[in-house]
């Protein structure tokens, strides 16, 4: 983060970034939707199929 010469502004920026990191980290902890897991299974199966064909 770019630091300013203003300690108060730095404190505000730090507060905002720490909150953002917390929010983002919580979102990362969400369960992965079934559609995505299914999509990955299909993509991996297609890759395997292609390998076998070769």
């Amino acid at each position, binding site marked *: *983060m*770019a630091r300013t010469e203003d300690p*108060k502004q730095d*404190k*505000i*920026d730090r*507060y*905002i*970034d*720490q*909150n*953002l*990191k*917390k*929010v*983002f*980290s*919580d*979102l*990362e*902890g*969400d369960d*992965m*939707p079934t*559609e*995505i897991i299914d*999509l*990955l299974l299909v*993509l*991996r199966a297609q*890759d395997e199929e292609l390998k076998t064909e070769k």
Partner: protein
Amino acid sequence: MSELDPKDELVTHLPALRAFALSLTRNRATADDMMQDAVLKAWTNMDKFQPGTNMRAWLFTILRNNFYSSRRKLNREVADVDNAFSDTLSVKPDHDGRLQMMDFKVAFEQLADEHREALILVGASGFSYDDAAEMCGVATGTMKSRVNRARAKLTTILQLNDDEVLELTDSATMAVVGSPNLPS
């Protein structure tokens, strides 16, 4: 450099990609659609990924390009928002820190898309201004300006310029954000 197969590496970035999708779209269904498109596109174009470069940045770029491109196609001026972002963490406000985190998230949702995106990339994900600017196809100065404007807007909404508010918010919220598994 990562020794993982790029497709295995892609999977490790999915939680962050979903968090980015949710923060950008603020709608779970749209975020998941965007995710599926981005994963499919990345997977089928893996030969275009340069090993040794930042895969997370590459994936985020694919997702954001999809998002803005489909939004332009639909010509939607108003986002279809279901508060996915602010609903995610708090089940029930049970103490000051959590209440203030909700305030923060509600305020964050009020930012313009490009400002929210800039803060997520630089403030939460730790991308440099240069990398974030490249991902968004803008100049580094533009990215800095977006981040500054976004912070200024949050400061106004949350009244962080008020010394007392910041002190109160700081002490209560640090207890929440100071969790040991939080990236520094």
